[in-house]
């Protein structure tokens, strides 16, 4: 019995070997139906693992190399040019906001940065200080839908507040200066419009008359009526 079983098994293996060699043509020519080959479970697992690995490689390449941030790459930093500017010029190029200052009570320094290839304006940087030097503020205002300021972050958990005409996200710290005794506030803020974005990157104010940071911001930044 064992010999018979061995021979039967060997014959099946031989048929399989012949079939794998020529796709079963020889067996069919001899009038023998080739055995049906059952896919092995290990082969399935190996195949699936191979497919998963291939997918992982392809997806990694796609997510790493595909320019999802193509918008930021529209302008190259080496083509940026910064020039002196004015509040009037800035307001003419803003879409969502209008910034106003009491220039008799404040000192303003403003620059405009544009892309020298396209000539398109990218952002304005503005420094303000009150003539009594009780307020110092730095504003960074982007005015191009294809340009986003890359480095603005809050270092503490910010507060989100909806004001009358726009929403503001900000962090604020108020302290009594231990050496001089004045109440001082230090803030950072972000006001987003549809195209423009106003970043207040540094804001230090000595509170001498009881007003608040949000009062000061709303006196400067106004939403335009589109």
């Amino acid at each position: 019995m064992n010999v018979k079983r061995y021979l039967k098994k060997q014959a099946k293996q031989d048929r399989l070997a012949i079939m794998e060699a020529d796709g079963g043509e020889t067996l069919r020519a001899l009038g023998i139906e080739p055995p049906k080959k059952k896919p092995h479970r290990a082969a399935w697992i190996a195949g699936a693992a191979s497919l998963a690995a291939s997918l992982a490689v392809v997806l990694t390449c796609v997510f790493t190399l595909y320019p999802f941030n193509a918008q930021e790459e529209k302008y190259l930093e080496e083509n940026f040019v910064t020039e002196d500017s004015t509040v009037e010029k800035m307001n003419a190029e803003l879409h969502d906001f209008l910034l106003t200052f009491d220039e008799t009570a404040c000192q303003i320094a403003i620059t405009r940065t544009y892309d020298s290839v396209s000539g398109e304006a990218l952002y304005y940087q503005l420094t303000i200080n009150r003539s009594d030097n009780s307020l110092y503020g730095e504003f960074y205002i982007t005015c191009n839908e294809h340009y986003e300021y890359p480095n603005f972050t809050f270092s503490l958990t910010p507060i989100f507040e909806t004001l009358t005409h726009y929403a503001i996200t900000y962090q604020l710290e108020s302290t009594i200066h231990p050496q001089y005794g004045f109440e001082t506030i230090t803030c950072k803020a972000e006001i987003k419009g549809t195209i423009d974005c106003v970043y207040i990157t540094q804001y230090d104010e000595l509170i001498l008359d009881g007003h608040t940071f949000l009062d000061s911001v709303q006196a400067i930044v106004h939403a335009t009526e589109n």
Partner: protein
Amino acid sequence: MLHLTTIGLSLLMLGTLGAAPCASLKNGDDGLRFCETIVYNGTNDDTHSTEIVRRDFISREKSVYDLAIIPPRYTYSPAVSSCAAVAGSNLIGFYDRYNEDLIPNHKSGSLIAGVAYSYSSQDEATFALAHTLYDYMGTDETGTTEAQFVDGIKKFCKEKGMSVSTASCMSSGSFSFSKAKTYIEANQPIVFFVSGYNVGFMAERDTFDSIGYSLSTANHVMVGFGYYIYNYVTTAGNVTDYYFNVASGAAIDSAGLYNINFKTRIIDALAVNIY
């Protein structure tokens, strides 16, 4: 992607902070030794990451000394890699208070309530100053060495009929807080030459302080205009944090508290007197 970027930045930061501080020192005119090889090339748009550190405490005491309630904090950068020129502008801006001819057509600031000096913001006159210092320091797109920084400041001041003296705040190759503290109290700002730096935003609460840091890996020059010492009694013992109130020169976080022991390496620090 965000995680990959964060990991990448972290690795970059480790790489920078692990670097040797200075491979070769050179003797300057006044006997001080300058690091000859390190080029300081921070720009005002250095890549930043942020980190928040919380200090829980039982009690807190702080010692603060500021040279002005709002010090100069100019950020105008004449070109890339010009952090030294921006730092030089802030330094000259500080002394403009005592000699308004240092920066023509610029009012340095004003005294608030007769006790606290508050500096004016940057303007076209300080922009021009930054350009001049950039030229006098011989800065190019690769940056500025410490020796170039000092030479540029001296050349500028000499033209204005002023003298410059510098004093090291280092001791046996390490930063000496006590030396710097002494010079600050003598009304002399400290110029920091660093590899990697932080600018902290301090939020003080009743039982804890939260310090949000902006971090950069750049080789950078910035100016300290005051010191802050925070002594904490905590459940784990006493902790002291040492900060300087700096004008970082960066467009974001142009001023804040620089923690001298947090993700930074002070290559050199000079107290500068212009007289």
